[in-house]
């Protein structure tokens, strides 16, 4: 088991190194940050001096190594755009993204699962068919369009919710939270729906098909024969047995929510790491892009590791194959 985790971690490091190297060799294609950093009247000599000072003339592998050796000491450099330390920029933006992703996941879970149960129990009912059809829209409309439509309806016409931003936030240590003010909570609603809609559809369809499957099994029939209430059968027995894949998918999708909140954050001017990344790309802000890409790489590596460990726990065959004396058979 420990050998398995260690091997996995080593592989993860290799993956991160590869991500970093690819990122650095791609940065030359996002353009020259110097032109964005200096004013139009800056002389060519001053531009070149700055370029040399920042090490932008060095080949990509050397820039990458320098970045690595600095990063290992916790030094991610200063943002070319705002001259602030990159580590601090990202840490400051992280709570906004995490809270948004968390709310979107909750929304997907608490709306998607009941919808899935309902459509699974009554597959032929007209309202199930309607939910199915509507969920198709959720999966086929692009995020930015859904976001703009929601803003149009709830902010421009109805004036119920704010059109952008985080509203009032409360600072607790280094963490800023939306959860403690009315305006903060209101600001969360539209972006969470926008971000969670796709996951909601996914969960609903997953739960539905699992429910259909489970409802056909013998133990449900026996439960009915025993005269249990519908409620006990549907939620106590059927839903419980569908939850294993649902939990796995939700966990995996949480990573995707954090990494792909970029579009939602841009539409709602949500001050999270996704928006930071977009601004950095436009500016060729290499230190921020590098740190962000590695962070997201790390996130996915960790998620995959967790999933592997989960499989390890779930699947006894995997356990017997690693570490044990039967390894010799390979």
């Amino acid at each position, binding site marked *: 088991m420990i050998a398995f985790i260690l091997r996995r971690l080593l592989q993860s490091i290799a993956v991160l190194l590869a991500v970093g190297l690819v990122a650095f060799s791609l940065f030359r294609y996002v353009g020259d940050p*110097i032109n964005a950093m200096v*004013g139009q009247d800056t002389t060519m000599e001053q531009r070149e001096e700055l370029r040399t000072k920042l090490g932008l003339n060095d080949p990509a592998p050397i820039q990458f190594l320098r970045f690595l050796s600095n990063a290992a000491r916790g030094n991610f450099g*200063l943002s070319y755009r705002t001259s602030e330390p990159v580590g601090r920029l990202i840490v400051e933006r992280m709570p906004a993204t995490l809270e948004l992703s968390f709310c979107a996941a909750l929304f997907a879970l608490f709306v998607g699962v009941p919808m899935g149960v309902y459509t699974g129990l009554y597959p032929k009912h007209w309202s199930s068919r309607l939910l199915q059809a509507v969920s198709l829209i959720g999966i086929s409309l692009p995020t930015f369009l859904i976001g703009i439509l929601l803003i149009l309806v709830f902010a421009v016409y109805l004036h119920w919710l704010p*059109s*952008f931003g985080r509203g009032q936030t409360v600072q607790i240590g280094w963490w800023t939270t939306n959860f403690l003010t009315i305006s903060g909570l209101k600001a969360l609603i539209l972006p969470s729906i926008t971000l969670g809609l796709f996951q909601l559809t996914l969960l609903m369809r997953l739960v539905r098909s699992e429910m259909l499957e489970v409802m056909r099994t013998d133990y449900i029939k026996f439960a009915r024969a025993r005269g249990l209430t519908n409620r006990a059968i549907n939620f106590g027995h059927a839903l419980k047995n569908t939850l294993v894949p649902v939990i796995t998918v939700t966990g995996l999708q949480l990573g995707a929510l954090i990494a792909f909140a970029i579009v939602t954050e841009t539409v709602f001017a949500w001050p999270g790491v996704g928006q930071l990344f977009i601004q950095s790309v436009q500016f060729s802000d290499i230190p921020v892009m590098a740190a962000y890409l590695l962070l997201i790489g790390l996130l996915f590596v960790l998620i995959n590791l967790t999933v592997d460990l989960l499989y390890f726990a779930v699947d006894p065959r995997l356990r017997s194959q690693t570490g044990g004396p039967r390894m010799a058979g390979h």
Partner: protein
Amino acid sequence: MTFNLRQSVALAAIACAGFGMTSLAEAKTFKWANSGDVSSMDPYARQETFLLTFNSNIYDPLIRRDKNLKLEPALATKWGQTDPTTWFFDIRPGVKFHDGSPLTADDVVFSLNRANGPGSNMQSNFVSVKEIKKDGDMRVVVTTKYPDPLLADKWAALGMMSKAWAEKNNAQNSADMTKNEENFATRNAMGTGPFMLKERRAGEKTILVPNPNWWDKPEHNLTEVIFAPVANPATRIAALKAGDIDMTYEVPPADTETLKKDANIKVMEGPETRVVYLGMDQERPELLESNVKGKNPFKDKNVREAIHRSIDVDAIKRTVMRGQSFPTNLMVAPGINGYMKDLDKRPALLKPEEAKKMLADAGYPNGFEVGMDCPNDRYVNDEKICQAVVAMLAKIGVKVTLKAQTRNLYFAKILRKNDLSPGETSFYMLGWSPAQTYDVHNVFEALIQTPNKATKKGQFNAGGYSNPKLDALADKMEQETDKAKRDAEIAEATKLYVDDFAYIPLHQQALVWAARKNIDLVQPADNSFPLRFVNVK
């Protein structure tokens, strides 16, 4: 006693009126948005219009620009030259920084040296400066290496910072990009300006409040200003319509018409001081991307004229720009010192046959092929303008291959190299505004004079146009202190580049701002947005 109905109504009316009065005198919060954030609170962090003008709400300059971009006294009550190479600035007495400490000559000397120091991006304002020192507590004396009549104009953008505050917080210099240290002045501010920084959340919002002890009489009635960056244009427009913001700085051309139809919103359009123009490589003996070998067609003035007179800027205004451009034939815009109104007339358009004949006479009976470079995210509709030019030139037999790309790649490709050797382009688009001096000399020096490594002239003359007569005139006007003589030199030099068809000026793009109907504001042509003129009704 009992109230009768009439008395009750009257009381209610008084109560309402009273309530209305207090709410009028109370919060006048002004919320506005722009596509990007101010990158720093440090007034010298970047020579960029948005940063400079945003921070000028907090940091007063020595001399500021009024609504019509004319200079007027700010922190300096009097300034001038005692001899051709000596300037003096008399500091306004009784001015206080936001922390209550008084402004003295020490702060001014410190600020000017900081703006010329390491980490600052304002150093190009100090090329002529030899020494800055104080003369008593309320006067600063500047000696220059050579006569520099534009020194005061250049410094109109420089905010004055508290010396004691900067030293206390270890922010004597602007942020050093090679270190991993936060600079205090990046997020905090200490000036004498009409507004004080209350809260700074980079990338989210910046809150300003009025300075109750400002030295000047406020023309605004604001009690709070909230600025938020909103990158997505559709969200910005929706927020304006919803009333979540009162004003947006950059309106996409496509949204202008719909906004005009909204009864709660007014759209303000005015010409910007930046001129968008096309340039041609007149330097290389052979063009980089062309089928003409052994010679460079752009070196021939007649070819340049044929191309110039085949580009219909009015059609570009009508179609591509949706009316939001101001066609021009000069490299500077109205509002800039040295703009020659009577020379700003585009020569008549040529019919395609006439242009083809001119090209044939010049030795290109079948036209020629050339590559063109264009940014696609720098100026309003930049790529579409280039596409229109490609179509117009196709009619006269000049086959243009367009390469449009993002600005950071584009500028790296077309601008001259460190040693001032030409960039990799044959035909390109640029925009320029003499944002430092608001004077035409900057345009001559940067764009039109012959590139010269020793004198640092012509750094952005990407096409390498060269006219020794014009070079001499531009050098003269740089140090000419007699206004009449200087104007004559400007007129002569302007005529030279116009007659040479050195560049193809296209237009000034329109500044388009939108605000709620209850907002009064001033829109200066340099695309600055001074909060000190904003009123909420």
